[in-house]
């Protein structure tokens, strides 16, 4: 990737990926910026202007309560992106700490940490998240807590496996012989080596955390109305589907774009970071 031409070539060869990544980044940017600069209130109702088709005033039309759909989709995106960012940060920190601890110490601590990870991985995260929300009640922070608690184990497993592989590599052993402390090796050699694989997993997970948030919202257990949320917007749309697609299409397409884009980004990063193993 020394000069620019190979990148252009990559875009040509992976047109579908490139479009997905571009759309997702556009959606992220719009969600983060537009609700701040737009004067429209996403929760303001106007029953006289309900279920309108797209117009110059309402670019994506209005919903059953006369609320502007564009601002609702983007505000919902803002909330989803923020929530998934927090969830992934917690998962990353927790996973890295547990994985490092397990990989570096070994023995009983390693065994305990990894068995705990196994317990979490032995069944889908959705069920535990649902059980936690059922107990704690729905809400933004309960949603974050429920998702973060169920999302960290793959990070712990990934970090541990990388640490184990690196621990016996020559340059780490050499650093140890030269008198580098464990903390120094961790900071200078292990953490930088982890950035690549962890980033691939993180970018893959962005879409799926957003899907989980929408799924929980769809079941009425995520972010609560009147705050806009993609899942709840879809539930609202169901009775009005026959009358027009303006309520059904935008939230679903938004989720689709996020998953597609971040999956593509993850694949592209993986290819870029491991050119040898993926060269086929």
């Amino acid at each position, binding site marked *: 990737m020394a000069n620019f031409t190979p990148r252009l070539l990559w875009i040509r060869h992976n047109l579908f990926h490139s479009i997905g990544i571009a759309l997702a980044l556009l959606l992220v940017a719009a969600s983060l910026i537009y609700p701040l600069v737009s004067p429209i209130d996403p929760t303001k109702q106007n029953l006289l202007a309900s279920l309108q088709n797209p117009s110059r005033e309402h670019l994506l039309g209005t919903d059953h309560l006369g609320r502007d759909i564009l601002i609702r989709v983007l505000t919902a995106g803002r909330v989803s992106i923020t929530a998934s960012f927090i969830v992934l940060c917690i998962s990353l920190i927790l996973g890295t700490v547990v994985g490092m601890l397990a990989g570096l110490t070994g023995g009983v601590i390693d065994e305990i940490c990894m068995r705990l990870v*196994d*317990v979490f991985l*032995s069944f*889908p995260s959705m069920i535990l998240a649902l059980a936690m*929300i*059922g107990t704690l009640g729905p809400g933004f922070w309960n949603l974050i807590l429920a998702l973060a608690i169920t999302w960290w184990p793959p990070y712990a497993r990934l970090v541990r496996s990388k640490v184990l592989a690196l621990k016996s590599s020559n340059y780490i052993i050499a650093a140890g012989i030269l008198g580098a402390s464990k903390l120094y090796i961790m900071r200078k050699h292990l953490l930088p080596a982890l950035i690549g694989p962890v980033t691939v997993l993180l970018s893959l997970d962005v879409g799926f955390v957003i899907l989980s948030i929408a799924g929980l919202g769809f079941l009425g257990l995520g972010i609560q109305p009147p705050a806009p949320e993609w899942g709840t917007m879809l539930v609202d749309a169901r009775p009005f589907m026959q009358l027009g697609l303006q309520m*059904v299409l935008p939230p679903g397409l938004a989720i*689709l774009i996020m998953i597609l884009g971040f*999956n593509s980004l993850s694949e592209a990063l993986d290819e870029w970071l491991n050119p040898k193993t993926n060269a086929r």
Partner: protein
Amino acid sequence: MGVSYLIKDKIVFRFFLRRTLWSIVVLLVVSFMSYTLIFIAPGDPATILIGKQTGRFPTPEQVAQFRTEYGLDKPLLVQYYNWLKQAVQGYLGQSFRTGTSVASEVRVRFGNTLLLVTVTMLVAIILGIPSGLLAAWFKDTFLDRFIHALSMLAVAIPDFWLAFLLILLFSIVLRWLPSHGIGSAKHLILPVICLGLANIARLNRLTRSGLVGVEGEKYVLSARAKGLTRRTAWIKHGFPNIAVPIVTLIFTLFSGAIAGTIIIENVFAWPGIGFYFVEAVNYRDLPVIQAMVALYAAVFIAGNILADIAYVIIDPRIRLD
């Protein structure tokens, strides 16, 4: 020969013994975790529930009576032990809300969920693996890229959104298929599509990348150079090499599909355990939530054990540790 088989049988037996013991530990941990949820719940469940049943704020005597009745006045470990003792005998507790026993509800509904998931997986296998073979055979052609793009879309479409679009098209506009409920084969079509699409795509991707990977191996290339046809190379080297990862994926997807039914059953009002679970979560019906988490854990662990057995059967080189 005979001796080595005996040794292998012994190792296999010890392996399964260890896995089973470990599964029991996992089940205990998970059920305990879900059991302790009741203690972190905000608000007193006894007060909330009596309030819901009688419609007015309960007196302290009523709360105390309720607690004694459900054993909520005992220490956590004693309560858990009592629950576990009954659970082992098949009694999973009873709903705070309706008073019906969880076990009897599950008995009625579990078959419905299993039917949905099994049909979904069969469809996914029937469509996913052949389409992967096709993509690998025509690697780097338009067909391959087309299948790749389709499968990326299939993974990214939110299943509940797809469900709405399909209901709109096939139930409301065309009136070909029922939009909800259970009863005939027709009722299965839409839920199976929604639940299965992503699974088809994942099987397709793995089949393709596995076969393309094997074809790039040096021993396969040299065999091809010596005149082995592509078809024989696939049969001799390709299929045996992709069998294990595909079986792994099928079991993973099976677990995923059971979790996926939680949302899909709600969209299509399919009377399975996912529908029941969400209902319990919505009403914060703690005994049902606890029992369902334990039950789900048991189902997934059973799936993991089945996967282990499948590995030993299909791959003689499998390392048992």
